């Protein structure tokens, strides 16, 4: 287990460097000179040249990339073109909001998806199954902006349950988390159903039933644990996506997270922040995938020996 862990951790390093390389390259492709962006169009050529030298923009590309990497390791993500604040400070303010929302959304998706899928598998081809899967298909067919709009309309305005504008109270995250969590929930439900049904067909389940285990016990103790790997994958990957910020939901519910932030930054061409947000999202994605791989090894010993 220890060796497996170390191997996987080491393998993640080149991926992370590659991510940094992509954001670095895209940042250099952005139109305009960073020094001019910061000083403004009316700055003298001398002061621009001085700032360029200070920022290392006159150095060779390779050296610039190494400096960029070194900066990343120190937490130096550059300075916003818009208000001159360090990007790290901006992320410190906004990312916790995204994290809270993502965490709640994952909770919603697991709490809704897994029981729904188990229920559908337990009553395969009966009306419970049909109803659960119909709900799942509809859940997956709704674009998030439609779902968010409907939820806002019914619950925030119609019934007056939650305020429309966000002020930071945790209960205000319930609707956005629902809007965000229902699609992964539907996916988790379908996948749980399918992989539990697969496990129910296996010999170990039949053996358990033959030895007198109840249907419920066969389902929960024998089939479900063996069906966990694909379910964990979806949970993990959806978590990875959610940690990158949810642009639509954060925008609709006016939550000051990195998703809404990056949309604003794109409109005002604040490249350092866009770069940092992308890198942050992609890094979270890679790390969550790494976590899921490690979790596999815990849940399923066969994974450990296979690699």
């Amino acid at each position, binding site marked *: 287990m220890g060796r497996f862990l170390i191997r996987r951790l080491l393998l993640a390093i080149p991926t992370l460097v590659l991510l940094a390389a992509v954001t670095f390259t895209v940042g250099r492709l952005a139109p305009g000179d960073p020094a001019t962006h910061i000083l403004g169009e009316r700055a003298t050529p001398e002061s621009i040249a001085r700032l360029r030298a200070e920022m290392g923009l006159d150095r060779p590309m390779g050296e610039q990339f190494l400096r960029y990497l070194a900066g990343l390791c120190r937490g130096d993500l550059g300075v916003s073109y818009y208000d001159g604040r360090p990007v790290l400070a901006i992320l410190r303010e906004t990312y916790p909001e995204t994290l809270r929302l993502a965490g709640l959304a994952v909770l919603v998706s697991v709490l809704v998806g897994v029981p729904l899928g188990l229920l559908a598998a337990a009553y395969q081809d009966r009306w419970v199954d049909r109803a659960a899967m119909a709900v799942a298909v509809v859940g997956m067919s709704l674009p998030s902006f439609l779902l968010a709009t409907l939820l806002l309309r019914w619950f925030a305005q119609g019934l007056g349950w939650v305020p429309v504008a966000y002020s930071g109270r945790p209960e205000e995250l319930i609707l956005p988390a629902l809007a965000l969590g229902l699609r992964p929930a539907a996916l988790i439900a379908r996948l749980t159903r399918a992989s539990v049904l*697969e496990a129910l067909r296996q010999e170990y389940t039949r053996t358990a039933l033959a030895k007198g285990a109840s249907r419920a016990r066969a389902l929960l103790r024998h089939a479900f644990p063996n069906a966990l790997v694909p379910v964990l994958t*979806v949970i993990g990957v959806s978590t990875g996506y959610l940690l990158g910020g949810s642009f639509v939901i954060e925008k609709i519910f006016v939550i000051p997270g990195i998703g809404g932030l990056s949309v604003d930054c794109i409109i005002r061409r604040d490249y350092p922040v866009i770069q940092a947000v992308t890198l942050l999202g992609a890094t979270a994605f890679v790390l969550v995938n790494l976590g899921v791989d490690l979790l596999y090894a815990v849940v399923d010993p066969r994974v450990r020996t296979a690699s």
Partner: protein
Amino acid sequence: MPWWTHGFGPRVKGAIAALDRLPAPLRRGATLAAAGVLLAMLLAAVLAPWLAPHPYQAQNLDARLLATAPGHPLGTDHLGRDVLSRLLYGARASFSVAAVVIGIELLFGLALGLLAGYFGRAVDAVIMRVADAMFAFPDILLAILITGILGPSLINVVIALALVGWPGMVRLVRGQVLVLKEREFVEAARALGGSHGRILLRHVLPNLAGPVLVAATVGTGSVILAEATLSFLGLGMQPPEPSWGSMIHEARHYLRHHPTLILWPSLMVAVAVTAFNFLGDGLRDWLDPRMRR
């Protein structure tokens, strides 16, 4: 691949493709319905200039935010523009973006996938490393980054979506080619002295058509959703031109009192995307008799 897996990464997509099937009668009905709906939408998009009761940009500030009114079956927006006409022209934007993006994806996906799968070795390694690097990013995030750098416009949305989409197509094609090139008919063609070009174009390519067609159909749905999402964020179609996403974008301030403004374009997106998904599933069943259950 079902469109709703868009944004869930290749690993999950694989798991879902293998596991998840709807019951057969439901699938058949859904496929037919989907084909009908899409045909109607496509016709409406093509015939928009003749079907639309008003020019899509015609403002009438005396008739703003109407629910329904004579001459405006679906009402008017905040500038008094006819919603039905804008929906019809919006369909043009959605369908043409999807067609161009999928066209580019097919071109690159087939060319690079055939090269990587058939020749293997260094060619394969280079192409697949680049594709893997693209996969490390959540795709909507990457599309937003690219549109962000290029600046908001519909053309840039097309570029961003094509850039994000090709690795998936390359993977699919490469995987199929790896299997196909070991088959007897390819070996026979080679034994008879067929050139690489001839084998690729005459023997491998035609056998790829099925899975690629399915992927393209379902991919069209994902592109429509992605375009709507980017336009909704203000990064795609710029006003006053309509696309379903930009209509939602403009309607977001009127949610409280005029919810239908946001509901109509959202529903169009939901219906189109779901229909492409069901159509793709149906095509897969039809092309692969083993899947008929």
